[in-house]
């Protein structure tokens, strides 16, 4: 069990302005699982994602990640977990425009205090894994959207995380590029990576082995055959 959420509640604001976002969310993810979370906008899926990725803390409930309860740990500790155990892929890539592809990929390694020579080697390795071995020294503005997202995936996996969190990874791409991204996810899944992906495209969600739906902060599970 890599993720176990028990009775997670998340509320924004306080007093009269209290806005509940997540209600009693319970969820388990086994190591190596490939899960999609679907839901309309405003349903709380991004909040759930942030809690899973240690970008946010739940108001109540327990979150066991990799066997440890770190739900309300300190800022520095959370930064460390994000750096070493979680890989993020965002809808809008979030690449640094003034950095080459490999430098973008190596960014989290720098925060993990990996040696300089080792950083480059591992960044190149990750770029090969997403099929960009011939774009290692390109700048993001020399790459297509799909290639940028592949760089972002390389950045997410180069730290060899326990969990890959993807937030609408194909949202900004055309269908062909989206296909390629999904193929990479399939491949990573086949290699044993645990993947949790947020999407509102059914075609994309279909690729996952399990789909969870979230409506108005309530999580429901729908098992796939």
């Amino acid at each position, binding site marked *: 069990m890599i993720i176990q959420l028990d009775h997670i509640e998340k509320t924004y604001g306080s007093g009269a302005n209290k806005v509940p976002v997540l209600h009693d969310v319970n969820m388990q993810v086994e190591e190596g699982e490939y899960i999609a979370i679907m839901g309309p906008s405003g349903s709380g899926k991004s909040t759930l994602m942030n809690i899973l990725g240690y970008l946010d803390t739940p108001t109540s409930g327990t979150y066991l990640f990799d066997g440890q309860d770190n739900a309300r740990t300190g800022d520095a500790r959370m*930064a*460390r977990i994000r750096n070493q155990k979680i890989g993020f892929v*965002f809808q809008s890539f*979030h690449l640094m425009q003034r950095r080459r592809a490999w430098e973008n990929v190596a*960014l989290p390694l*720098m*925060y*993990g205090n990996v040696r300089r020579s080792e950083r480059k080697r591992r960044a190149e390795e990750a770029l090969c894994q997403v099929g960009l071995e011939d774009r290692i020294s390109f700048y993001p503005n020399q790459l297509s959207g799909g290639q940028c997202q592949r760089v972002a995936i390389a950045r997410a996996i180069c730290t060899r995380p326990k969990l890959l969190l993807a937030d609408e990874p194909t949202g900004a791409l055309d269908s062909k590029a989206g296909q390629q991204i999904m193929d990479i996810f399939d491949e990573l899944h086949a290699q044993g990576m645990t993947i949790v992906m947020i999407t509102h495209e059914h075609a994309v969600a279909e690729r996952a082995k399990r789909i969870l739906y979230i409506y108005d902060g309530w999580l429901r599970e729908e098992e796939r055959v």
Partner: protein
Amino acid sequence: MLENFREAFDGIWSHKLRSALTMLGIIIGIASIIAISSTIMGTNEQIKQNLVGAGNNTVEVALYQGDYVLDPTYQQVPEYVRPLTEDILPDITKIKEVQDASLFYRRDAYGMIWYGSEGLNQGSIYGVDEHFLSVSGYVIRCGRSFLPEDFKTFKKVALIDRTVSETLFMGANPINKTIEISSEPYVVVGEFTQNTAFTPTITSINDYFTYTDHSGGKVLIPATTWPTLFAYDQPSSVMVRAGSTDEMTEAGKQTAAVLNGTLTGSGDVTYKSKDLLEQAKKLQELSNATNRQLIWIASISLLVGGIGVMNIMLVSVTERTPEIGLKKALGARKRKISAQFLTEAGVLTCIGGMLGVLVGIGLAYMVSRVSGVPIFISWYIVAATVVFSFVVGLFFGAVPAVQAARLNPIDALRRE
């Protein structure tokens, strides 16, 4: 760390105009500080050189009655002042700051020295030993110097300086002419002059009265012939040469202390050093006091520059919010984020400081050209101002840096 600097330069370079404008405040502040301090130090150096002369580093220690040199021609020498002998010299040269020392007698030469009908109505006559010329930094311009036999055989020979030569001989060659000193015939064997051609820089009438030599000429004779002209027990003065200009004060004081040790009683007549360096310091303080206020004014522009840096860094934090969010999501800790912005602010002001130094030096040269005041650029001050501008950057970069580090990664990522 290296990465921080790289990002800082990237950030500065990608907004060239903005960075330049931000730096302007710092540049102006540092430039004025450099220009003002260079001018101050130049003036001070000039005052010192004018008074002290260029590099002879000689200090005269003589008997003083109150604030004036005691001249045995006009004043009574108290009983407790014992005549000095050569034996005192080793005690003086033992002093760390003293390189060399020489004993000499001196009297006012008024009405005492004649060549035909031409007489000296000012100036001094010196009875000197063999070291005197070298200690005082005098060299022979023409003719010869004193020889050891001159001292041993009580030869009545004299050396004169330019002033005396012109007064008595009106431009004619003085060598081998016989002059009368206190009715005794003395043969002029040479003319001496300062070994370093030094003329004080005169920019005002005050400078003229302060710096020009009004001693009205010097005539040197061997000390061994002095008693035939004057009393046997006349007290001597001592000329000492210090190791460096800055050691002059100490050399003078120490020598005076040694000489005062020979006094067998006490009164208002004591040995004192004619301390030009101290005099220079007093004059320098006067000029410093006014200029120091200018430094304060310049510092205000540095403060304004610093606030400008803070302002721009705050804008930069807002602008780079998504980037900060990404970095935090990827595991950058608060310290890392704040270090990045601090580095950028520091590098920005440091570059501003360096440019300011260049502009300041240029300004100082211009001021010097226009006003004739010399400048003196102290590398110590240059380094200090560059470091200071870096510190200004760190200080004013602190608020933006903390603000960046505090950003919530979720909010930061959401803002595209």
